[in-house]
């Protein structure tokens, strides 16, 4: 029985494939990209722990052959914080959606970033609540549509990267389901960053976001990513007006700050001497 490429056989619970995402959904591309990043870094699979919340994105860990945890809506980062602090040797990766991470999970996002705990968070950002059938989310662009924004979304969307940067994340980047090679590199650098890393991975949702907003088929949505993404390194070359309706991808922030579990280990050391 043919069970996929070497990458898939090595890293997936193949008997659980094919996954549940719709035809043309970008999440499968992102999940593979995350897996390829893990493979490229040849991490010890026994020590990789993937945590997710609730939503389309968050079904990913079930398919991935690691220590996997599918938690409650919005709470992946809080669960992951407990895992990382309790066992820092684990490489903790959070896979979450735009709604899961920035709506109900917003409080946990800004605090995990503020702590700069060594967790790599990949937001499968498809600008919609897919699992519940197409409601608009905190990243749905203004004036666009969702089943709960039948007259156009009046909310202003988050820039997830700026949000994470402002809260204290030390690695922040954005990739897309089209620019897969770049995304793999961004995830690798995020995993290698000893601190809180956030990668905003723009996905496509033809079934709801695409249909509701007349973005065409999966192929058209992929071409949109291809034609409207501008790499942060190239931004200066573009006049302002052109950038108006483009979006910027690439690495935005890569700094080093004290990492939470390292700081806690210093306390453990300090306390040990107290009790000699």
């Amino acid at each position, binding site marked *: 029985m043919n069970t996929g490429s070497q990458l898939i056989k090595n890293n997936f*619970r193949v008997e*659980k494939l094919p996954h549940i995402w719709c035809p043309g959904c970008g999440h499968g591309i992102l999940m593979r990209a995350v897996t390829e990043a893990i493979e490229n870094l040849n991490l010890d*699979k*026994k*020590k990789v*722990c993937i*945590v997710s919340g*609730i939503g389309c994105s968050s*079904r990913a*860990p*079930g398919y991935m*052959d*690691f*220590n*996997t*945890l*599918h*938690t*409650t809506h919005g*709470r992946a980062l*809080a*669960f*992951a*914080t*407990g*895992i*990382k*602090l*309790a*066992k820092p*040797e*684990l490489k903790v990766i959070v896979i979450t959606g735009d709604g899961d991470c920035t709506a109900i999970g917003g*409080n*946990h996002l800004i*605090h995990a970033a503020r702590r700069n705990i060594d967790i790599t968070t990949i937001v499968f950002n498809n600008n919609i609540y897919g699992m519940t059938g197409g409601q608009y989310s905190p990243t749905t662009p203004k004036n666009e549509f969702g089943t709960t924004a039948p007259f156009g979304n009046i909310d202003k969307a988050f820039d997830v990267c700026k949000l994470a940067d402002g809260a204290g994340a030390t690695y922040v980047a954005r990739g897309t389901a089209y620019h897969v090679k770049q995304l793999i590199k961004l995830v690798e650098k995020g995993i290698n960053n000893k601190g809180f890393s956030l990668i905003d991975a723009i996905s496509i949702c033809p079934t709801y976001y695409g249909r509701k907003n007349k973005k065409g088929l999966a192929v058209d949505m992929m071409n949109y990513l291809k034609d409207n993404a501008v790499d942060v390194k190239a931004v200066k070359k573009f006049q302002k007006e052109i950038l108006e309706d483009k979006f910027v991808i690439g690495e935005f922030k890569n700094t080093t700050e004290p990492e939470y579990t390292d700081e*806690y280990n210093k*306390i*453990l050391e300090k*306390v040990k001497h*107290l*009790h000699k």
Partner: protein
Amino acid sequence: MNKRQIKLMQGNEACVEGALAAGIKFYAGYPITPSTEIAELCAEKLPQVGGKFIQMEDEIAGIAATIGGSLTGLKSMTATSGPGFSLKQENIGYAALAEIPCVIVNVQRAGPSTGLPTAPSQGDIMQAKWGTHGDHPVIALSPTSVRETYDLTIKAFNFSEKYRTPVILLLDEIIGHMREKVEIPNSDEIEIIDRLKPSVEDADEYMAYKPKKGELVPPMAAFGEGFNFHVTGLMHDDFGFPTNDANISDQLLRRIMKKIDNNVNDITMYEEEFMEDAEFLVLAYGGTYRSARSAVKKARLLGYKVGLFKALTIWPFPEKRIREISNKIKKILVPEMNLGQYVLEVERVVKNESEVHHLGKVNGEAITPEEILSKIREVL
């Protein structure tokens, strides 16, 4: 048996000391009166035993991180009071279905809402059983003294490890904040139970949700040990992988319920006193119990044939014993700091074998022996 240590201790402190005796290595929580001393003491003491403490951004994150800690193999606890207990409900249900051992302490304060933050109450009794959505296994214990807080915290950890389930420890502000002399049992006197672990050989066919033949509690590996298993809050199969299958879902829920229902004798703890000639009974628990005991002793001096029942295990309700007692008891009085919660269980079980009366108090003050005594005179 060498001499036991004697200490003057606060209830909340005894909870932490008990947790340390039980082998706690992880605490995640959030400050809330009247439980904050538990967090403060864990912050100070856990690093000294190689354990870890984290103050999270809210109570939901508190229990989420606690569950995360437990998944790496550490005995984990969180503590809160009413408002936080309400926030934790969804993840308590998650820990019940995903069968993750952990201890949730609720130092009850007068509610609802912000209520009387520094005043005692027993108003979360039903919430402890029905707070989160859906049927799920529940174990809840409630101490009546600082020493019992120490003992029942150990019991809470033991039950959570033994049955792979969250256990709720119901204190109230009286028990949590009062100080009294406590005789600490020596470590060799204390029974410690650790979770059943899978053997290393079956690493690749390890099924995180398949108990051994005839058992109800599956062995539990820890993240990072080579058992790459999946944990989810969705209904799941023996591998832990999500399922919509009606049969599998039915079997899973009934199995986790049976973990408790089939072991009620092991889990249910209670004490009785003055029962020999008893025609009437006072049933009390937690912070109200000592007032009840004082009232019963006085009543007996006045010639009332009153017995006393102390419920230490709140859930599951000590159904068998209460039904037996009701055969020879005419009237039962249940004093509790709420408007009638645990009394409903007594009525459900006793039906019309005995008359059931309730003494409720919700103004933030403890129920006094005099109040219970006058109620005894009135109804018995």
